[in-house]
């Protein structure tokens, strides 16, 4: 059975108050579950279904539509590396390869110490600052190899 923490319960309450129909809170609740566990577990989907009066299968069908919900464990730091046109024009592909090699993983993988997950991203609305990546919630723009080294080294 999945148990939301006290802090998560407050977030759930705050989100449910926003909508006239509680199903609207599905994405927000998935975010709350992911914040708590690092990813959306099957048990969390079942619990969210109960709260919103929808089936666990429905919750899963929605969760898997959106790329930001992880249904498997991810690292402490999730790196979304933009590879779309504006970043690509400025060398994002080489920098993405460099980052993968540096971390010793394939794009899409997680380091063995569970510290980093590296994902390819389809544009993060930072086109004027390309090449760029997002590490958890932080945007890092105008990337170079040197800058990537420093960012990765600075993360505890």
């Amino acid at each position, binding site marked *: 059975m999945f148990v939301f923490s006290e802090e998560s319960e407050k977030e759930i309450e705050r989100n449910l108050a926003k909508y*006239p129909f509680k199903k609207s809170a599905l994405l927000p609740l998935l975010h709350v579950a992911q914040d708590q566990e690092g990813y959306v577990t099957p048990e969390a989907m079942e619990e969210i279904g109960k709260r919103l009066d929808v089936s666990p299968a429905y919750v899963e069908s929605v969760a898997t539509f959106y*790329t930001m919900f992880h249904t498997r464990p991810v690292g402490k730091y999730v790196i979304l590396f933009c590879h779309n046109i504006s970043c690509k*024009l400025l060398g994002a592909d080489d920098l993405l390869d460099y980052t993968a090699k540096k971390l010793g993983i394939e794009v899409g993988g997680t380091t063995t110490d569970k510290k980093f997950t590296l994902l390819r991203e389809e544009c993060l609305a930072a086109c004027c600052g390309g090449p760029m990546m997002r590490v958890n919630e932080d945007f890092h723009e105008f990337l170079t190899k040197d800058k990537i080294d420093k960012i990765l080294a600075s993360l505890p």
Partner: protein
Amino acid sequence: MKILTKEIDTPGLTGIEVYEKTLDGYQSLKKAFEKKPEEIVEMVKASGLRGRGGAGFPTGLKWSFLAKDVFPRYLACNADESEPGTCKDRELMEKNPHLLIEGMILCSYACRINTAYCYLRGEFRHIQRVFDKAIEEAYAKGYLGKNILGSGFDLEMYSHLGAGAYICGEESALLSSLEGCRGEPRLKPPFPAVEGLYSKPTIVNNVETLCVVPFIVNEGAEAYAAIGTEKSKGTKLISVSGHVNKPGNYEVPMGTPTSVIINEHAGGIRNGNKLKAFIPGGSSVPMLPADKVDVPYDYESIAEAGSMLGSGALIVMDDTTNVVAETLRLAYFYMHESCGKCTPCREGTRWMYQLLSQIEQGNGKPDQVELLDDICDNMSFKCFCPLGDAAVGPVASSIKYFREDYEELIADAKAGV
């Protein structure tokens, strides 16, 4: 002339006190409440403001299409900015969230809406925090909530975070997502103004569009209409990215020559290279060759040149660019982001990607360019929503203007290079 980005780099502008002091923030509400809601709609109509999300539909006209006497009604601000090349709304929200809130309040008053949502793309979580804090401040000052400034008008405002799906920028898919569903587009008509969120009349407006409204209410429709060209009024915030010396968001009057935006505002092409191609309005519009760079940046002129103003994102490619490789990347994007609801888009985007991959990797065959063109033809205006047409834009235009890039790669493949 700055409307959207005036004083945008003022330190502390995200705080309500600085916003009020620096930009006379929220003064437009007092002016608006002296008028009837329908007078505000007429003002916006008279200003000539057109939606800045991509379609360019007249904003005041959209507001006037709301189903009469059906309540409740909703406002959904489209802050799901995900179009490759486009990053203007992020700057507006990150640096000046109160401008958007003020615009949303004005729209809600004009349209007799009592509940407004701002749908932010999932990756904008840090902006949601900025926006939520600004909403709290606006409530505390009496600009939101019950009986705003004693006007008798009530408005509740909330942020809503998406979770990574470009299709949610399409207005009906956005509403599906806001209702807790997969972000799949709906059949139109009925349009959201008649049947939108929870099947009630709903206005869906882009961030930049709503940010213009305080100026129109403060300065008058005529002041706004005096800027720009005859049919494309006002200023436009343009994201310039790619091979330029100074990429950035630049606000210019509509009708400014594209070459001026690239060479003067964005500092020209990097490394002294020459321009090869540019995409005038974000990844979903046709690219244009260098000889069209003097085109005035407005809806009509860009359409006449064979493309669209779209979201206002100018992607610049210099003469070192392999156009097929860039087109391939865009084709991948649309394949990845197709929601899968309709066959022409689901199958067409994948097929285009596969063919472009073969060509780009040196395994292309001569008839594949014709086949790509044929797929474009079979997708255009045949998909359920505009995503399919958007996928066609870069592919068809790259063949039209840069066919030699394709032929060169295919000739190399034949020669075994």
